[in-house]
């Protein structure tokens, strides 16, 4: 299978990228290409122009900025998965990238590409929503920073305009005594997700919960935050009973589809199970004793 014909641009700078995008509303950015190219081969996508940024220098990095981790949009999943500072501070990101596709896909696929592709069943969108990431978007009018809750707008749609480019993802550092985890269930390894959950928890005074964030994927047009479960966790002691109640609440607002891979009911149940399991892993990582985990 061969993609439909397209004009090809390989700009050498971000300014050039933005100029070319501005001149052609149908132009698509090609980063790692691990979602775009299969779609173009299947003719599900047929952009008239492709702006290849896979070699654009200066957008592949992981930097400690004191208050946050700055990740260049062209950083590959493989690089992220092997990065010590990511694992130390954001285990859920390490967990999530390990579940993306396979080694070959992780070698080319990028965090920026996955975020902008905005597949609601993609690992990166759900993990970044739970991490409360910020997205640096550049365009003709300069730079703007968009929080995760405003970034994922709809199915395969983000806040990035057609003449803009996502250049950096920022992960704000978590307070002391925080930990995170991410889990996904798919019918087979590397297959599409039945459900996915990313959690971040911060503890205080013994094992009571100071703050929690839960991201749920594959349960609607965009990944969503399990707001009711998050509210319930805050101030409660983090034990099995609390975890179970939070898990039950995690499906509020979730609208998973029913299809050949799993019914809506099965998917809702899976979200509950993954919420429980990922909370236990996060809490174990935060040093809470007695957490039963099956990682």
């Amino acid at each position, binding site marked *: 299978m061969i993609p439909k*014909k397209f004009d*090809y641009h390989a700009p050498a700078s971000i300014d050039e990228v933005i100029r070319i995008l501005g001149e052609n509303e149908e132009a698509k950015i090609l980063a790692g290409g691990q979602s775009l190219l*299969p779609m173009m081969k299947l003719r599900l996508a047929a952009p008239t122009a492709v702006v*290849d940024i896979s070699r654009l220098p200066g957008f592949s990095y992981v930097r400690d900025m004191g208050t946050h981790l700055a990740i260049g949009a062209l950083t590959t999943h*493989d690089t992220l998965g092997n990065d010590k500072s990511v694992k130390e501070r954001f285990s859920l990101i390490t967990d999530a990238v390990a579940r993306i596709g396979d080694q070959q896909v992780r070698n080319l696929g990028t965090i920026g590409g996955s975020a902008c592709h905005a597949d609601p069943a993609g690992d990166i969108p759900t993990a970044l929503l739970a991490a409360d990431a910020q997205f640096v978007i550049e365009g003709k009018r300069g730079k703007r920073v968009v929080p995760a809750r405003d970034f994922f707008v709809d199915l395969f749609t983000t806040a990035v305009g057609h003449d803009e480019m996502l250049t950096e993802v920022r992960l704000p550092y978590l307070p002391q005594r925080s930990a995170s985890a991410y889990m996904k269930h798919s019918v087979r390894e590397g297959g599409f997700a039945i459900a996915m959950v990313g959690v971040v928890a911060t503890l205080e005074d013994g094992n009571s919960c100071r703050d929690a964030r839960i991201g749920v994927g594959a349960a609607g047009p965009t990944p969503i935050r399990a707001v009711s479960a998050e509210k319930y966790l805050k101030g409660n002691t983090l034990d099995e009973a609390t975890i179970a109640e939070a898990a039950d609440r995690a499906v509020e607002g979730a609208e998973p589809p029913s299809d050949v891979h799993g019914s809506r009911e099965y998917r809702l149940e899976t979200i509950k199970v993954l919420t429980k399991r990922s909370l236990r892993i996060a809490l174990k990582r935060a040093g809470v004793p007695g957490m039963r985990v099956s990682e």
Partner: protein
Amino acid sequence: MKADEQIRMSMRVNHKQYSGAVEPRTLLVNFLRDDLGLTGTHVGCDTGHCGACTIIMDGRTVKSCMILAVQARDAEILTVEGLAEDGKKLHPIQEAFMQNHGLQCGFCTPGILMSSLFLLQRNPHPTEEEIRGGVEGNLCRCTGYVGIVRSVKAAAEVLSKGKTTTKKKEVDH
């Protein structure tokens, strides 16, 4: 570049310099097979699932059906044809696959060999789980992976000893 324009480019494949001209939409696997005649790299599913077209580009495995040929301009490419020394003496990984029943029909083997090489370069002593993870992106419909895992383990032993030969082993049936 306009869609119909041919883009001139060159790349190093198996330590040899090649140049050619491609349409923007030409996939790397088609350039390797059809333009350079390197048909050792196979097209299996052509949708990015099976990994038969796996090659090593600038040190990392990629599925050559999931990347445009122009994206590989000036790259250093290694395909299955580049594994054997002087094109004759089999690479220790190839030798291990031959000795340990690591293939049956052989269609997936070029890709599996490249993924195995990448894995062993990164992790010279992989566990069984790590080997299975390493070839996760390569589908084999014959062996059930048992022979593949055994082959990669045997190759790891040979490579870590710096030897280039492996003793013939009994094949379990």
